[in-house]
């Protein structure tokens, strides 16, 4: 047997190997960039400093990793799992903060500066929370990986954008209609495919989402193609439009007109609907249907052996998830004012799925946190202008958003497959011995 290598030389060797691998991975793709020149002929621009930086990073990370894993570790007693701390005050406090947030922002920042805060960090995050909770019903509870969630989102958005000018109905009437349309689509798509095994189901939902998107792009007469639909009626406060002038919301309540009023109202609508989604999924989890979903997620064969109608149970989860996506789509149309196919690409489905995966499939708190994290992080990336000074003016940090989302999904599956908040209580447990339930 050979003598064990000294740690440093082993770490050094590992580091060199890692650097070589990074060099192989990055060789043409990082080291060169093909750009068309003045004659529109592709030419190569060498980027050796960047390439060498990556190799050095690979070396350094692997070197440190080897040293870190080889450090002497004292043996520690295994801790007994602690009883979960109950924090009954957390939910009311969080709700109070959520209600106070959009009202405080204009007071603190002024109505103009508050626009962005209420819109991006308020309405947008809540929309993603709503979508996340909706998808969580399919993915987290019933274990049905739905890669076409953006299609139902699109159905909701287009349902509102098409029906509002056509029927003249108000937003309150069309909100459930959009949801029902999406649920109907979920039902129609789910009906044939839900018999498939999990990963096939995922790919078929993906294919359906692409079909929906292609149709939206090409069916010019109805959807106006890539341009999308706009000019549909905006949200109003129970009939009072958010416009300046004597007939608007602001004048009626004796306020000074501000664009932020509309967003604050929209914020509360989205918040209320998100809470409904949350309430529905928490309650359903305690019903036989919800129990069946969770059982189905764990073991489909056992469920079938117990006589559960797996197709119906899956279909309800799928359609209910689609319903909330439709609702979210309607709200998205109201927020954006324009609905176009580019908002409903696979990237959108992947982002919502990443929210559910990051949050921990089945965990309501986790999904909400993950939605805030992803929206917050992508906004943060947009703000990092100082990086332009380091990497040159072409550097656009916002491009890295989906790259990081992808990496986060891989990392979560590998290291914390149960999500950031990995302490979801089982819905049902056996009573402890000697304690009557």
């Amino acid at each position, binding site marked *: 047997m050979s003598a064990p290598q000294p740690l440093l030389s082993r770490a050094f060797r590992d580091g060199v190997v890692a650097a070589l*691998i990074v060099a*192989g*991975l990055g*060789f*043409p*793709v*990082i080291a*060169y*960039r*093909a*750009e068309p020149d003045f004659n529109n*002929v*592709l*030419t*190569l621009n060498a980027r050796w400093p960047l390439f060498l930086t990556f190799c050095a990073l690979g070396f350094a990370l692997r070197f440190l990793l080897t040293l870190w894993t080889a450090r002497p570790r004292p043996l520690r007693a295994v801790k007994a799992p602690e009883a979960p701390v109950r924090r009954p005050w957390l939910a009311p406090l969080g709700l109070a903060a959520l209600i106070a947030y959009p009202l405080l922002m204009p007071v603190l920042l002024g109505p103009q500066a508050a626009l962005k805060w209420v819109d991006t960090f308020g309405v947008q995050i809540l929309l993603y929370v709503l979508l996340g909770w909706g998808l969580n019903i399919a993915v987290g509870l019933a*274990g049905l*990986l739905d*890669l076409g969630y953006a299609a139902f989102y699109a159905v909701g958005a287009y349902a509102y954008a098409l029906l509002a000018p056509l029927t003249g109905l108000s937003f309150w009437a069309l909100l459930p209609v959009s949801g029902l349309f999406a649920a109907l689509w979920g039902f129609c798509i789910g009906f*044939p*495919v839900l*018999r*498939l*095994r*999990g*990963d*096939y189901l*995922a*790919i*078929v939902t*993906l*294919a*359906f989402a*692409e*079909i929906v998107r*292609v*149709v939206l*792009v*090409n069916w010019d007469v109805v959807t106006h193609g890539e341009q999308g639909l706009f000019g549909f009626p905006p949200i109003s406060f129970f009939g009072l439009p958010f416009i300046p002038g004597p007939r608007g919301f602001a004048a009626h309540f004796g306020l000074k007109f501000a664009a932020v009023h509309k967003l604050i109202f929209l914020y509360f609508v989205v918040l209320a609907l998100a809470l409904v989604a949350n309430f529905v999924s928490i309650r359903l989890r305690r019903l036989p249907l919800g129990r069946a979903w969770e059982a189905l997620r764990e073991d489909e*064969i056992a469920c079938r052996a117990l006589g559960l109608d797996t197709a119906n149970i899956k279909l309800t989860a799928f359609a209910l998830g689609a319903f909330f996506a439709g609702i979210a789509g309607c709200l998205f149309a109201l927020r954006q004012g324009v609905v176009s196919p580019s908002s409903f690409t*696979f*990237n959108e489905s*992947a982002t919502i*799925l*990443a929210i559910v*995966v990051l949050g921990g499939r089945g965990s309501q708190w986790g999904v909400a946190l993950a939605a805030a994290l992803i929206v917050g992080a992508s906004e943060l990336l947009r703000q990092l202008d100082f990086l332009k000074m380091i990497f040159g003016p072409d550097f656009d940090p916002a*491009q*890295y958003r*989906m*790259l990081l*989302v*992808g*990496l*986060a*999904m*891989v990392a*979560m*599956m*590998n290291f914390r*497959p149960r999500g950031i908040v990995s302490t979801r209580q089982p819905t049902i447990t056996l009573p402890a011995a000697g304690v009557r339930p």
Partner: protein
Amino acid sequence: MEIFLQQLINGVTLGSIYGLIAIGYTMVFGIIGMVNFAHGDVFMLSAFIALLLLLLLTQMLGLPAGLAFVPVLFGSMCLTALWNFVIERVAYRRLRGSFRLAPLISAIGMSTFLSNFVTVTQGPNNKSIPPLLNKIIPLTSGGDYDVTLSYKQILIVAVTAVLLAAFWFVVQKTSLGRAQRACEQDAKMAALLGVDVNRTISLTFVIGAALAAVAGSLFLLQYGVVKSSDGFVPGVKAFTAAVLGGIGSLPGAVLGGLAIGLVETLWGQYFSSDYKDVAAFSLLAVTLIFMPSGLLGRPDVEKV
């Protein structure tokens, strides 16, 4: 009739490329039972590697493009194989014992990462190269529409046929192929009998990536243009091909690829080219719903 013949030739060419990608899906699915969702993006990445190597050889070293293509093909195969090897180690290996959807979710993350990695490093626009190997053989002449067969198309179909034969031989006759088939049937038992399962799985990914790289290089040769979002749709179509041919079956993958290529080009010609993706995707859904074991596959029975 001439148009039909021409579309038939184009369809077979496109189908060969799908078939080569589909082999990667079908082999990985066969051995570890996961849908390697990132495979389409590996294909796209390989096309980019080929593009950059081609520019490197022709512009920096001044080789003629025709001569450069062979080293480009081999370079792209090696580098893409390294990529897929690393991807398997980083993203999938730890998940083998995890819950069922974990590898698929990880693969979706990897796919998102890869396409955005290329967007970030190479920009989101189309990259087009001047056409290579332009000779064509006119098959009919004098009519309103001349059917032509280009050297490129012959090359693509020939390469696919040769590679399929080579890999068929590898899987059927060599010890690697035997190990692969053993792992496919029962990984635990194969490990007990001395098959290095990890190594076999790694090799499967390497072979799949090498074939995807061939497809990527041929794609670049045929269409002369590639962009960073090009992995997604060909990826799904190649998966459709794998499913249609019967997942797990090598000749099935190529057969499925040809079928998809033909459906797509003929649909584009006779119905609507805007909706040709819809045709391919609907075919996927219809196949999975009515014929989940495909043309040449074995029925998949789920056991406890």
